[in-house]
Each structure stands twice: as structure tokens, then as C-alpha cells.
């Protein structure tokens, strides 16, 4: 496979400006959606004969409907502040991955058809016709943006590249040029309820198996309830938490925390997915359809509150858009935030003192934390400004003795993308994913060198999967990426659980 031949850039600094490699990534593109995948999410099966007219009509509609999109297209003065801020540019050196240049692939077309200067003097203002070549260029480079929004932090006008990438993908979808990875997955959510296509019977068997594992490991029975009517809390978590490692360890952590907190909770088989890829393709209709499953599940189960598990963009959609997409949530208990993040819940329990924590159980780990882009830059958490940075760190420091942050310009609001976000977590983009991860990997290697860091934790299913595939290419074990609630789970002593010390005492007593 091509994955072995990836030319990984050797960075001396996580944010090192690369030598330009024009056209280096021109051939990078994801597999196209099949007609069946396209139709499952309401788009034409293949490129329509009148695609150009439809694309321009969609662009016009977006400009009229979405004020921000039009401002972003009009406001850029090419100051260059964003040029070196994208992990894909740093990793690939392709100048079209400079955020301004990537935006301009679409902006140049907008200018040609929707501005006075572009209509009459196109060559003077860098305006260009929409051709099939341009469309193919969009398909390639708008799938080299993970919509992480790091560039927008440094833009003096606050232009949000993610919005432009989302718009470009939406335009491509409506003319019949969709991407397989996202559209196949969204279709599965509409049909089955989650990205994996995990049906109720399989989900139930998986959760029962996990309950057995927890009891075998701890000697205490902890439930992971499914479809339990009348439970107080509905947990909405990425389906990767039912399937992949280290995600599952995080789910076990949530279950143990809920158990110790003494609350009633449930997972829903109907809304068994936190992820909402409708965001990645810029499709409000699909995003809403996915979000409405959560509303229906909450009403059918009669819950009082909703808590989201560790999923980055899901938290963005939940925190920022859930009310608009699927509200009002007036049937829930107003005492609790709608929605709440699992880390807020766990941090609350730690502060109340309900959890019996033995931090030394994580002493084999020297840890750093990767701020996931959508949590860091597109949401908040808890009541205080910056809660999305501090609450995860507070929880980590409460359960882990050896914690070290990576370089300040690579964390919190300046965090680097994992390299696989925004609908790019697909094998055919492994070259891009590896190169795009290299700035984060360099920042990690630096804390390994300086502080002996062995592991990294994250609170996003995409980040976790991406790193478990990518970290081995940078000298780490695939198990060096952890769920934050995996660390909580390691350190949490369940009520009634016999610890090694207890066992030692019992043995000593019986000897006497």
C-alpha cells in the first residue's frame, strides 16, 4: 500500500514554514460517492449535465442566505497572516494549502460571476471562469482542509476558512460531485442511527459484553443501559465508542463515573451517534436530520438531561447549534445545561468528592493533552470562559500525577489539527493525513524529549483513531493515544471494589 511510501516531513519546529512545493498535493483526493451514497443524503447520483449553472445558483443562494459566507468572500485583503497557520500547508508545502490560496479557489469564481470588477475585468482582479478543471481542483483542495479553523484565529478579519470549505463541499454535493466517506456515513445515520451501521441487536450485545468485562476486571457490576425509558440522562456518544480502541475504554470510564455518581442513564439505539457529518459537508438539511434523532430519542425515553461523550465536532454541533437545529428543549430539566459535556459532569463529581480516585494508578503514564480543534475553537464548556481548555486539564490532573502541556502556540485556541478531521479520516487520504499530522507530532516529540512524555490523551473520536494510525509512523506505540475517561477509569476505585492493598491486608490477616 502507498501508506508505506509517505515522505514524512522532518520538522525542526512544529510550526516550521516549509519550502514551497507547487502542485505537490494536486493529485490528492478522496474517493467519489457512488450514486447510491449520493441519493441516500438527498443529492444527485452523478455530475449533472448543467452542473455549472447549478453550482453558480447554489453559490448565489449561499451568498444571499449566509451573510458570513459573503463577507468572508468579500473581506480578504491578502494580508498573508494565515499563510503559514495550516497544518496541511506546513506538512505538504503545497502553496494551495495556504488558507488564503485555498479560499481563493472559490473566491476567484465568486468574483467572476458576482462582482462588478470580476464581470468586466476578470484578469485584473484574479477572477476566473468556472470550468470542470476548477471543479476538480475544488474537489482536491477542499478535501485538504479539516475545517479546524486554526487559520481564522490569526486572521485580522476573522475569516473562517471552514465555512468556505463547507460551502464548496455543499456546492459540489448539489451538482453530483460528493465524497464517499462522508456521504456513505451520513446515509447510514439516517437509516440505522450511527456512522458504523451498528444495529440495536449488535449494540446490545456489545454493551453486555462490556458490562461483563467491567465486572471481570473490577469485581463490581456496572451497567451500560440501552433504551431504558425513564432514565434521567441520555448519553449521546460517538459510535466509535462502541467499536474502536481506545474509544471503548472511554465509554467504560463514563459508565464507571455514572455508576459512582448514582445517577440513572441510558444509551439510545435510535440516536446511537454523537457525530454529525452534516457539518463537514456544509449541509444544514442533513445536519438537522441527524440532530432530530437526538430530540426524538430524548422524548421517547423521557429523559431529563442530555450528556455528550468524547467527540470533537459533535460537541461543536451540540454546543453551538443544537437549539437551532432541534430545539426548543423545554421538555428537559432546566436545572441542567442543554447539552452538557461528559467532562463537565465528571469534573462536577470530582469537585463534589463522590469519586474515589487513586492517581498513582496512572503513574506508568507521562501524559500530554491534545486539544481537539472543534472543542477548542468552536465551543465552550461549563460556566467559565476557556472552560473547554481548563475542564479537560482539571480532570486529567485530578487523575494523573505526570502531566505536561505541549508548546503554547500548539495548544488551546492555537491547537493543531490531528490531521484527520472534517471528513478526511479515510484511508485513501493517508498521505495527507500523515503530513498534516506532522506539526502535532513534532510538538509531541518535543515534550517527549523534554519531559519523557509517553502518552497523549484526546476527547475526540476522530483524533483518537487518527493518532492510533499515525503515531506509529512517528515512533510511538499505537496504544499511546488515550481517551480522557480511560485515565479516569484507570484511577477510579469503585465502591465495593477490592483493591490490591485490601487483598494484601486480607491475606495478612488470614496469615495471622
Amino acid at each position, binding site marked *: *500500500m502507498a501508506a508505506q511510501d509517505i515522505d514524512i516531513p522532518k520538522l525542526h519546529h512544529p510550526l516550521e514554514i516549509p519550502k514551497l512545493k507547487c502542485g505537490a498535493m494536486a493529485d490528492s483526493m478522496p*474517493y467519489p460517492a457512488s450514486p447510491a451514497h449520493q441519493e441516500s443524503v438527498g443529492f444527485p447520483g452523478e455530475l449533472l449535465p448543467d452542473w455549472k449553472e447549478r453550482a453558480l445558483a447554489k453559490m448565489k443562494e449561499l451568498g444571499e442566505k449566509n451573510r458570513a459566507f459573503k463577507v468572508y468572500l468579500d473581506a480578504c485583503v491578502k494580508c498573508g497572516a494565515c499563510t503559514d497557520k495550516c497544518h496541511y500547508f506546513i506538512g505538504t508545502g503545497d502553496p494551495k494549502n495556504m488558507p488564503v490560496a485555498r479560499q481563493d479557489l472559490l473566491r476567484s469564481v465568486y468574483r467572476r460571476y458576482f462582482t462588478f470588477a470580476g464581470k468586466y475585468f476578470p484578469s485584473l482582479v484574479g477572477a476566473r471562469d468556472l470550468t470542470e478543471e476548477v471543479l476538480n481542483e475544488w474537489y482536491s483542495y477542499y478535501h485538504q482542509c479539516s475545517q479546524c479553523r486554526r487559520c481564522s484565529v490569526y486572521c485580522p478579519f476573522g475569516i473562517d476558512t471552514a465555512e468556505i470549505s463547507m460551502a464548496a463541499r455543499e456546492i459540489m454535493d448539489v451538482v453530483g460531485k460528493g465524497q*464517499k*466517506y462522508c456521504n*456513505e*456515513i451520513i446515509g*447510514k445515520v439516517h437509516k440505522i442511527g*450511527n*456512522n*458504523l*451501521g*451498528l*444495529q440495536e*441487536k*449488535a449494540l446490545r*450485545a*456489545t454493551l453486555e*459484553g*462490556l458490562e461483563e*468485562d467491567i465486572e471481570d476486571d473490577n469485581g463490581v457490576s456496572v451497567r451500560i443501559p440501552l433504551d431504558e425509558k425513564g432514565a434521567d440522562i441520555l448519553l449521546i456518544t*460517538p*459510535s*466509535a465508542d*462502541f*467499536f*474502536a*480502541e481506545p*474509544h*471503548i475504554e472511554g465509554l467504560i470510564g463514563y459508565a464507571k463515573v455514572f455508576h459512582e455518581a448514582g445517577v440513572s442513564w441510558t444509551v439510545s439505539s435510535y440516536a446511537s451517534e454523537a*457525530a454529525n457529518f452534516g457539518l463537514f459537508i456544509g449541509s444544514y438539511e442533513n445536519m438537522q436530520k441527524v440532530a432530530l434523532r437526538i430530540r426524538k430519542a430524548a422524548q421517547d425515553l423521557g429523559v431529563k438531561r442530555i450528556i455528550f461523550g468524547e*467527540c470533537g465536532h459533535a460537541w461543536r454541533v451540540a454546543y453551538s447549534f443544537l437549539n437551532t437545529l432541534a430545539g426548543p428543549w423545554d421538555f428537559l430539566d432546566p436545572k441542567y445545561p442543554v447539552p452538557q459535556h461528559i467532562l463537565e459532569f465528571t469534573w462536577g463529581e470530582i469537585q463534589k468528592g463522590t469519586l474515589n480516585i487513586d492517581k498513582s494508578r496512572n503513574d506508568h503514564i507521562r501524559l500530554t493533552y491534545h486539544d481537539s480543534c472543534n472543542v477548542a475553537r468552536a465551543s465552550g464548556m461549563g460556566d467559565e470562559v476557556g472552560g473547554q481548555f481548563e475542564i479537560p486539564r482539571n480532570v486529567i490532573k485530578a487523575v494523573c500525577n505526570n502531566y505536561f502541556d505541549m508548546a503554547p502556540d500548539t495548544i488551546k485556541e492555537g491547537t493543531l489539527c490531528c490531521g484527520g478531521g472534517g471528513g478526511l*479520516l479515510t*484511508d*485513501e487520504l493517508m498521505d495527507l493525513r500523515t503530513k498534516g499530522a506532522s506539526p502535532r507530532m513534532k510538538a509531541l516529540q518535543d515534550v517527549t524529549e523534554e519531559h519523557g512524555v509517553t502518552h497523549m490523551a484526546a476527547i475526540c*473520536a*476522530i483524533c*483518537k*483513531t487518527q493518532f492510533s494510525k499515525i503515531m506509529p509512523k512517528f515512533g510511538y506505540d*499505537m*496504544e499511546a493515544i488515550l481517551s480522557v475517561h480511560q485515565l479516569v477509569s484507570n484511577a477510579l476505585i469503585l465502591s465495593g471494589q477490592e483493591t490490591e492493598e485490601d487483598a494484601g491486608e486480607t491475606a495478612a490477616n488470614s496469615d495471622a
Partner: protein
Amino acid sequence: MPYDVNGTAVEHDEEGYITNLSEWTKDLAGVIAKAENIDMNEEHWEVVNFLRDYYDEYQIAPAVRVLIKAVSKSMGPEKGNNKYMYELFPYGPAKQACKIAGLPKPTGCV
């Protein structure tokens, strides 16, 4: 190019997963494994058979954890771990073993 199983063509998608799951045979598994540079031994077959049985029951591949638990029971704890699964299937038990077993690729953030 479709897989060639003793002269019969079997279609697959861009990534090598067969498109019609009912076309799977043991001979086809051998052909897919060869394309993946895997020399099928008894342990590979044990994993592939488990995946197929699980899929028959649940219409999806098992979580890696479930697979490892089953392998641990049948082959012993020294082989029932993630590392050993990656030794058998370097591109991952979930994806590469599913491909050989004729199952659809697991989709999502996995």
C-alpha cells in the same frame, strides 16, 4: 480489476472490499489475502471464520475488543491482544481481516 477466482471474476470497490457479499468463498479469501500480501495460516482463518460467524448474527463486524476476547478464548491469552492481531493483519484486524472475510468495511471514526 476484479478478483480472479479460478477464472470467475468477483467485483470489488476502490479499496478491495467485495461489492456482493454473497460471492464470498474460501478460494476468494485466499485471492484477496494474496493481494494484501498475507499468507493465510490457521490463525488467520480462525479470525476470518469468527468475523463471518459474527457478521451472520449481527450484520456488522465485531468491535476489535470482542474479536480479541474471542481469540483469547480459542488461541490463548498470549495471542488475544491487539499487537498479535496487527501481526496477523498489519493494516488492522477490523479493516484488513474484514476485507478478506468478505465483510463490508467498518465506516465512521474508526
